[in-house]
């Protein structure tokens, strides 16, 4: 290879998008105002902010004191979802996406969403989790949104009570097979989210082909869940741990694992739930009834 390595590096640097004016203004306001004491302006990325060992120690003691009281609250909060989302405007682009949307699970009277019901529960690393209610039936539906080339792309993950694993993104609807979904739908009905038997709603994204398939762990978790960990099905080793912040876990880094499953851990680090095996890229094709995980992982 004869090209100068510095030139290659500079080309590597090119193409990074320019931050918009809103980001610029937010950063400026944070730096000159709230930056001295406020939390991160975008809240998508944790920045260490220890100013001194003494300050850290005081903070640690305070956190430990609070944790003692919090544990008792968190331990019985697998039914709760404190994040009710913030209302967002559903513009013509969003409505256009939705009008072409098809849900594939049996028994849900799909219809267009109420434009005034759109809420965003989280947005991190370029991925957002949204909810909206259907006009017909007032069902709560879940979406994962990504922006690509200035357009918003939404993948639907079904409406309550069937939301989550069985509901397929619209573009994969032919994979569903509604006949095969009856047992699963019955399971969903009897295991609503959030509940102790179903404290996690998996909305993961996947793609790629062959050995280049990837998975991006995304979803919602009940209040009692502190982190989601992805484990390799082959040997149970942890692939990634994603913190649950405001009931949402999002990791946009594409992970490459043959087969894996998710576990939910509470504030004490104890595993309180595990998913069925995920097989990327069809991460959304999951049967909750098939919950086999390696015995050596120590889960039932």
């Amino acid at each position, binding site marked *: *290879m004869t090209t100068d390595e510095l030139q*290659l590096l500079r080309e590597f*640097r090119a193409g990074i*998008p*320019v931050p918009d004016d809103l980001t610029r203004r937010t*950063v400026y306001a944070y730096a000159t105002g709230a930056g001295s004491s406020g939390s991160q302006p975008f809240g998508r990325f944790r*920045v260490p902010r220890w100013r001194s060992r003494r300050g850290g120690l005081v903070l640690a003691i305070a956190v430990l004191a609070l944790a003692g009281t919090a544990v008792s609250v968190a331990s019985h909060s697998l039914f709760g979802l404190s994040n009710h989302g913030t209302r967002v405007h559903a513009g013509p682009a969003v409505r256009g996406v939705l009008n072409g949307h098809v849900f594939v699970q049996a028994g849900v009277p799909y219809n267009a969403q109420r434009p005034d019901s759109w809420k965003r529960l989280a947005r991190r*690393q*370029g991925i957002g989790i949204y909810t909206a209610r259907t006009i017909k039936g007032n069902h709560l539906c879940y979406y994962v949104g990504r922006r690509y080339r200035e357009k918003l792309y939404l993948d639907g993950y079904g409406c309550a009570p069937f939301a989550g694993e069985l509901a397929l993104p619209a573009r994969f609807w032919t994979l569903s097979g509604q006949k095969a979904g009856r047992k699963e739908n019955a399971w969903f009905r009897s295991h609503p989210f959030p509940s102790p038997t179903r404290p996690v709603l998996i909305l993961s994204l996947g793609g790629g082909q*062959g050995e280049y398939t990837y998975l991006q762990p995304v979803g919602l978790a009940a209040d009692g869940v502190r982190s989601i960990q992805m484990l390799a099905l082959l040997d149970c080793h942890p692939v990634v741990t994603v913190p649950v912040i405001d009931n949402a876990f999002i990791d946009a880094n594409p992970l490459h694992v043959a087969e894996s499953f998710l576990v939910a851990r509470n504030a004490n680090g104890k595993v309180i739930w595990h998913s069925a095996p995920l097989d990327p890229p069809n991460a959304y094709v999951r049967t909750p009834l098939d919950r086999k995980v390696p015995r050596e992982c120590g889960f039932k």
Partner: protein
Amino acid sequence: MGYSFDDVFAAEFEPLHGYISRRLGVSAADDLTAETFAIAYRRWGDLDPSRPVKPWLYGIASNLIQHQWRKERRMLRAYARTGVDPVLAEAGSSDDRLDARAQRAILAAALAQLRWEEREVLLLHAWAELSDAEIAESLSLPLGTVKSRLSRAREHLRNCLGRIGQVEAERLRTVEEGR
């Protein structure tokens, strides 16, 4: 002092954001850029007016980026394995040219193999466009150390590009043809 905080913000916000974006992704860049300027604002009174501000600013950013070295390495490795740029993918764009993808995947692999200290010097030189003296100022290092680290990093890159270039390019082409 010949420049104000506002002047520096106006001049350096975009390059700094771009630099951090390339290293850790756009979302991380939003917060780390904000934190960098917040620290700069708080310490503005301590800044020596006779010294250039850019190395000082990138020095703050480097300290923050250093905490995320695992994330950076993970992203580079993912890029090397897949040929998909995680930063551009997050931002919703991509480089569709196969040769560019293959070459950058190799480069990402080589960068991931570098020691953090060497990568830092190299990227401040290549991406932040700081001179050797400015890097020394930025990282509080002797100039000789910067030069030797830069030299080692470049040599490592050259070796990697030469050694695995052909193999990786062939692998990515095979994958592309299979799709």
